[in-house]
């Protein structure tokens, strides 16, 4: 790099160096509070991973888990979930409202929040079912592995917890099938404040959990499946997302991760995004591996994200834009009753 270039760069950015920053929303106290929360989460997860193994071995569950071949509504031959089939539902529970559903091959989750929650609170409940043979060693956060035998859930053995070690929360785990686990976690209103109704709420949510369903997912848009790729995840909440992946390599799903994923997301009222160009008359942010078309259908924006744009057919932004143009929204995406199956 030449000295001239160096001088040009420094001179160019000089106006950004000299001016005073605008008023700040940065809050050190919040950083400490959130940081403490994350520290506890990290400790809990690490402890949970160890305890899960110990507990499962102790009760002899691992030896009873079949390795493959079990099927149920919507599950695949290998006992995994089809991300486009919802096998989990929760009927309305007093005090909670639905927030989001996510599905992958190994687990499906419904997130609920307390009716009184604000966007700043951590108060939420999470219901998860795991695929065959997938022990819940990644269960949520803010809770300790349960060791207390509880009342059966849907006629199956369950364990509960309700404590503040290291943070406050309550929940249940049970076997939703003879060979698969489910969990409900209800967080406390604050990390250090126990919710006296937490376990009761967890029981209510567990009782309201339906695991025998097989419901095709619906989206406000249809997307073509890129050649050679398969759907590996789906989520429906503040945004609706379909995730494609390359097929597994010769070692199957346990082998190295496929080289790249393509995420197609419909965002409702997406936050600030700087537009860099126009796509079909809509402002858009286009950069390598990422095309975001703003307000493509009313308040709905579309994002197509490629995680490794160096190694696939979407290496150029042009090809990614071409793909984005093939995504079609329904006429009135605000009306969920008009949503459709995502693939076409």
């Amino acid at each position: 790099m030449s000295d001239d270039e160096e001088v040009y760069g420094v001179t160019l950015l000089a106006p950004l160096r000299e001016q005073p920053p605008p008023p700040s929303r940065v809050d050190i106290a919040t950083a400490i509070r959130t940081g403490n929360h994350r520290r506890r989460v990290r400790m809990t997860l690490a402890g949970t991973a160890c305890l899960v193994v110990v507990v499962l071995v102790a009760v002899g569950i691992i030896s009873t888990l079949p390795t493959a071949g079990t099927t149920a509504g919507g599950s695949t031959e290998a006992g995994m979930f089809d991300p486009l089939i919802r096998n989990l539902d929760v009927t309305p529970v007093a005090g909670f409202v639905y927030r989001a559903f996510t599905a992958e091959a190994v687990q499906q989750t419904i997130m609920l929040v307390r009716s009184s929650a604000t966007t700043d609170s951590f108060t939420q409940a999470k219901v998860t079912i795991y695929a065959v043979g997938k022990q819940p060693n990644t269960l949520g956060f803010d809770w300790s592995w349960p060791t207390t035998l509880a009342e059966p859930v849907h006629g199956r053995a369950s364990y509960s917890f309700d404590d503040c070690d290291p943070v406050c929360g309550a929940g249940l785990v049970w076997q939703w099938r003879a060979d698969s686990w489910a969990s409900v976690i209800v967080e406390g209103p604050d990390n250090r404040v126990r919710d006296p109704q937490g376990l009761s709420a967890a029981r209510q949510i567990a009782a309201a959990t339906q695991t025998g369903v097989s419901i095709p997912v619906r989206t406000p848009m249809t997307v073509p499946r890129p050649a050679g790729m398969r759907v590996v995840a789906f989520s429906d909440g503040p945004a609706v997302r379909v995730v494609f992946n390359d097929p597994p390599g010769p070692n199957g799903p346990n082998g190295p991760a496929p080289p790249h994923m393509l995420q197609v997301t419909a965002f409702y009222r997406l936050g600030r995004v700087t537009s860099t160009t126009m796509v079909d008359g809509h402002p858009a942010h286009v950069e390598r591996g990422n095309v975001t078309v703003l307000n493509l259908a009313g308040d709905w924006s579309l994002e197509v994200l490629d995680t490794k744009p160096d190694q696939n057919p979407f290496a150029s932004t042009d090809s990614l834009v071409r793909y984005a143009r093939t995504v079609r929204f329904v006429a009135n995406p605000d009306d969920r009753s008009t949503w459709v199956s995502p693939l076409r």
Partner: protein
Amino acid sequence: VSDATVEYVDYVTGHLPQLRRVAHALAGDAHRADDLVQETITKLFVHWRKASQASNLDGYVRTMLVRTFLDERRLRWARVRLTASVPEPAPAPDHDSAEGVTVRAALAQLPHRQRAVLVLRFLADLSVDEVAEVMRCSPGTVKSQTFHGLAAMRRLLGEPAPSVKEL
């Protein structure tokens, strides 16, 4: 309050203006810059015991900031408003000079990594090798990104390209 927390608060308080200046150049707008800094100092608190032992704490924190910025597009989910009733924050008052606004707008059009290289090189005053370490790439890549980033800035600002001889 532990001694470590006091040290953390002292450090962050003293370095906040610098972090916010770099974050503002990276993010392009004040709100996202504050989000970046907030996330960075939160991560810093989580890792403070290790970070405070670093031989170059400023570099450690700067790397955290840039990695957070580069990872940010993968975290776009977090920017989605969760309910329709939550208002967008009002735009921050614009403190930029006309020249600053122009430069910031041009910078915002660069790809993330190119933008980060220019900001680290010419605003944070890091050497090529230091930028390479932060960006986890080779010095050659930093030089190449710098060249292409400056060329793009010239184009966007309507400035004539220097001759090959000049470079």
